[in-house]
Each structure stands twice: as structure tokens, then as C-alpha cells.
């Protein structure tokens, strides 16, 4: 097997911002003393005057971004997911969400793949928080190509957008010439008839590998990549669920309030279907190498394969 290319989506974020900055003078990037980690440093190098480091003050940063947005510029406010969505939740809700301001929140280091920093830095609750805010678009890209396209789409969309990126380098899976990012549109990566696996972010590539293993056992799994969790592509979810009659959701996020919950909402209201939610099971994370944590918390291909197989019995 040839070496798969791996890139962390936070890298994609920094690179995409620098590209965006070239094309659009109204792009302004804010950070809260994490420019090296969130990769907004790439933008800073290219456009130092349009990079505003607010220091370690995330709540203020969200308000400053809101103020900048009122003047017509397009701010990207960046920090770790824990602090962007967690610490500054109320500022995002009241200063950005309520006035529906054109602020893009670039949240990196989401989920347990943060690794060694441990539970205080592993945010498994951000999707739940952000998707509860009226009008907030929530995007969780699965690889470099999707992450870069998401940044571009977020810029084009008028209104608040939450972009979720990871720290760990993940395989590039969308490098085909037909790849097209459409806000709110699911991508069917593999057709199947026995079970639907709906994944988002880092576990998309793991889910594809799991589907491969399931095929060897005679289980035909459809794999759908949901990069936009809000607004959710309800049609795609319902269509595939009707076809397979069984749905599994996989996310690097708590099983409470994230992709799994969003999918259950749609199915429960329209076409009750049995669902297995794979994610972080209402626990805090811990320190360790990211790859080991992904395995321990059941988000690697083997764990997904085992759980789906059991579910299909």
C-alpha cells in the first residue's frame, strides 16, 4: 500500500486563511495567544497588520470579532474549541449569534485527538453548544481538502459559522477531481445496502476502513460524510436510512448533542430507525498519544467495525 498523505485540519485552516487573505482584503484574523497552534500564524506571516492577537482573553476576542463584523469586514476568530465554544459560549451566543453577525469561529484542537494535553483541552461538547445557537452554521471537515473548502465556503456564507478543526494529522480522503464542497450537503463516500454509517470529521476515514472490513464479512455498509452538522442534510440521512434500515453515527464528540443527536432528531421525527451512536460516551478524555486515545475511546476502524458488526446481527 502506498503511503497515505496525512495533514492536520488545523494546518489546512492556517493555509486556507492565508489564501483567503490574498483574495479578499476584508478578511481579518483574530487569535488568543495560540497562533502557532491554531496555525493562524501562517496568515500572520503574510498579513501581519490584519492579524489581531487579543492575548489570552477569548470572551473579549469574540466581542471584538463581533464589533469588526458590524463594520463590514469578515473576522475569523480562532482558539482551541474548548475556549472558543466553551469559555466564550455566552459571548458567541449574545454578541455574535443573536445579532447574526458575519463572524467565523475557527476552533482547532477539537475532540480527544488533542492527545497529551488531556481532558481540560479535549472539547467533546462544542458541536452540542454551537448547534444550539439559532442561525449558527456548524462545519466539521474530515480532511485537508474538505477543511480548506470549508474555510472558503464559510467566507462566502453571510452569517456566523463555527469551523471545527483537529490537531492530529489525518489521511487525505477527498483528493478526487470531482470533489465539491457544498454547505449543508452530505457526501456519500461508499454505497451500501445493509447499514448506513454516518460520520463526521476525523472518524470519516476510520469509518471507510471499517466498511472495507465489514464488506469482507458480507456486510454492505453505506458511508456518508456529514461535514455540515448544521444545517443537516436531512434528505440524505432519510434516504439512506430508508434504504438500509439501520443507522450508525460516528463522531469525535460526546454522544450527547452532536452529530448522533442531530441524526436521531431527524429520524425520530420522520422515519423512526434503529440508531447506534458511536462517540465519546459521556466521559472526559485523558492524556496520551492521540492515536492510542482514538483506539481507547472506540473511534478507530477496528472498534467501529466490531460495533457495527454487533449492531447488524
Amino acid at each position, binding site marked *: 500500500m502506498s503511503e497515505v498523505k496525512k495533514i492536520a485540519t488545523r494546518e489546512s485552516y492556517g493555509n486556507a486563511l492565508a489564501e483567503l487573505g490574498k483574495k479578499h482584503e476584508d478578511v481579518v484574523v483574530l487569535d488568543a495567544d495560540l497562533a502557532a497552534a491554531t496555525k493562524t500564524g501562517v496568515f500572520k506571516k503574510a498579513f501581519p497588520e490584519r492579524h489581531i492577537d487579543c492575548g489570552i482573553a477569548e470572551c*473579549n*476576542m469574540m466581542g471584538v470579532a463581533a464589533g469588526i463584523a458590524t463594520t463590514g469586514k469578515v473576522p475569523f476568530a480562532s482558539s482551541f474549541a474548548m475556549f472558543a465554544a466553551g469559555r466564550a459560549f455566552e459571548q458567541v451566543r*449574545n454578541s455574535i449569534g443573536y445579532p447574526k453577525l458575519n463572524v467565523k469561529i475557527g476552533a482547532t484542537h477539537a475532540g480527544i485527538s488533542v492527545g497529551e494535553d488531556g481532558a481540560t483541552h479535549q472539547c467533546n461538547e462544542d458541536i452540542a453548544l454551537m448547534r444550539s445557537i439559532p442561525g449558527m452554521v456548524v462545519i466539521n471537515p474530515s480532511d485537508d481538502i474538505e477543511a480548506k473548502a470549508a474555510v472558503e465556503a464559510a467566507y462566502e456564507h453571510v452569517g456566523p459559522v463555527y469551523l471545527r478543526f483537529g490537531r492530529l494529522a489525518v489521511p487525505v480522503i477527498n483528493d478526487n477531481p470531482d470533489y465539491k464542497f457544498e454547505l449543508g450537503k452530505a457526501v456519500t463516500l461508499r454505497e451500501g445496502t445493509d447499514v448506513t454509517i454516518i460520520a463526521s470529521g476525523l472518524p470519516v476515514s476510520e469509518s471507510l476502513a471499517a466498511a472495507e472490513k465489514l464488506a469482507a464479512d458480507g456486510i454492505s455498509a453505506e458511508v456518508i460524510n456529514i461535514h455540515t452538522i448544521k444545517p443537516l442534510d436531512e434528505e440524505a440521512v432519510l434516504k439512506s436510512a430508508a434504504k438500509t434500515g439501520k443507522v450508525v453515527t460516528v463522531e469525535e464528540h460526546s454522544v450527547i448533542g452532536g452529530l448522533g443527536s442531530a441524526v436521531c432528531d431527524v429520524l425520530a421525527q420522520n422515519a423512526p430507525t434503529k440508531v447506534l451512536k458511536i462517540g465519546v460516551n459521556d466521559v472526559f478524555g485523558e492524556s496520551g498519544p492521540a492515536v492510542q486515545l482514538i483506539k481507547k475511546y472506540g473511534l478507530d476502524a477496528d472498534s467501529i467495525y466490531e460495533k457495527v458488526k454487533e449492531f447488524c446481527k
Partner: protein
Amino acid sequence: MNIDPADPKKPDRDRFVLSKGHTAPGYYSTLANRGFFPVEDLKTLRHVGSYLQGHPDMKHIPGVDMSSGSLGQGISAAVGMAISAKLSGDDYRVYTLLGDGEIQEGQVWEASMLAAHRKLDNLVVIVDNNNLQIDGAITDVNSPYPIDKKFEAFNFHVINIDGHDFDAIDAAFKEARETKGQPTAIIAKTVKGKGVSFMENQASWHGAAPNDEQYATAMADLEKVGEALCQK
């Protein structure tokens, strides 16, 4: 202020952010009387379906530059507006009004640190220093004094004034406009409920509406204050 009721969103306008958003009624009546929307609409305040929300709503109220109401947040938006002006070389000015209880919020000091660090001389922070908050005197609850020294320590140009003296207010804004390289904080000593005999300095009137009789007394009191002002 450079504002135009006929064109409330004109790009070069001066901005005002009512960070202490709970005083929306005073803000709305000022905007209405300045011509931003009909004065009779004020009677719909807080009614279901009215655009005059309990706290300022920039989406629906002409003249409102920023939604506010959650204390401590408005000043950050004002700082963002001032930064944006500096980035694109616009010369509009940004004013924001805070309560003296509100400055207990840590976010106010996060915003102040950044404002001075970025030398936002196009920003004026006004503190309504009435010494009261909901639970009583700020000195009893959690004293933020000395307020002027705190803003000075955060590298603001600080001006202390009597917040009921119009000439002093005027002079302070002029001084702020002439101050270069740092933001200005105007600490305005005020009396909550000023001019209404039974309301002055009463924390209990923070969010209460007068009955008909109290309303009549209050209006008569204010007439007198108005007349006295006109004679000055």
C-alpha cells in the same frame, strides 16, 4: 456625533454601543426624539411583536449599532469597531457607555487592556458612576473603586466629571477627541434617578415602572429640572 437618522447605517457614522444595555428605554427615547423612529412607537416597548426589545437589538432598531444586554460584552464590540476603523483608516469615533457595576465583569478589563495596547484613540469609554447596582451600593457589593486609577493603570486617558453637568460632558468629549495615542475613559459621577425626588439614589427603582400617581409626580419633578436647565 456624526450620525444621520435618515441613513442610520451610513458607513462613516460615529458608533455608540450601550454596553449597559438594560437602560434601553432611555436609549430608545433618545433615538426616537433624534428622529430614528416614531416617538409614539416607544409605547410598544417590551410588547410582543414590537421591534423595541427589552435590550438593544441592532437587527431591528434603527440607530442601534450593537445588540447588548449581557453586561461586559458591549465594550468588546466597541473595541472591535475602533480596531476596524484603524485597520482601514476610517476616521469615525466609537463611544460606549458602561455601568459602574458592570465593570465588575472581567471582560471589561480584557477589552480595556486591548484598547490601550492598540492605542485606540478613536474610542471613548464612559462609566456611569451612580454607585448603585441591583443588590445595593457598589461599595457594599464588590467595590470597583478607585475606578479612575484602574483605567489609568490600563493606560487610558482618564477624565473625571459631574455626569449631570452638560458643559463638563461637552468639554470631556472635546478633550477625548484631542487625546492621541490612547483611549479615553470618562468617569461620570451621577445620581441614579436624578431629578425625580422619590427615585434618586434608590436601588429599588433599578427596573421598576411608576404607577400613574408616581408618574405624575416624576414628570412634574422633571419639568422643574428642565426649566432650571433652560435658565442656565
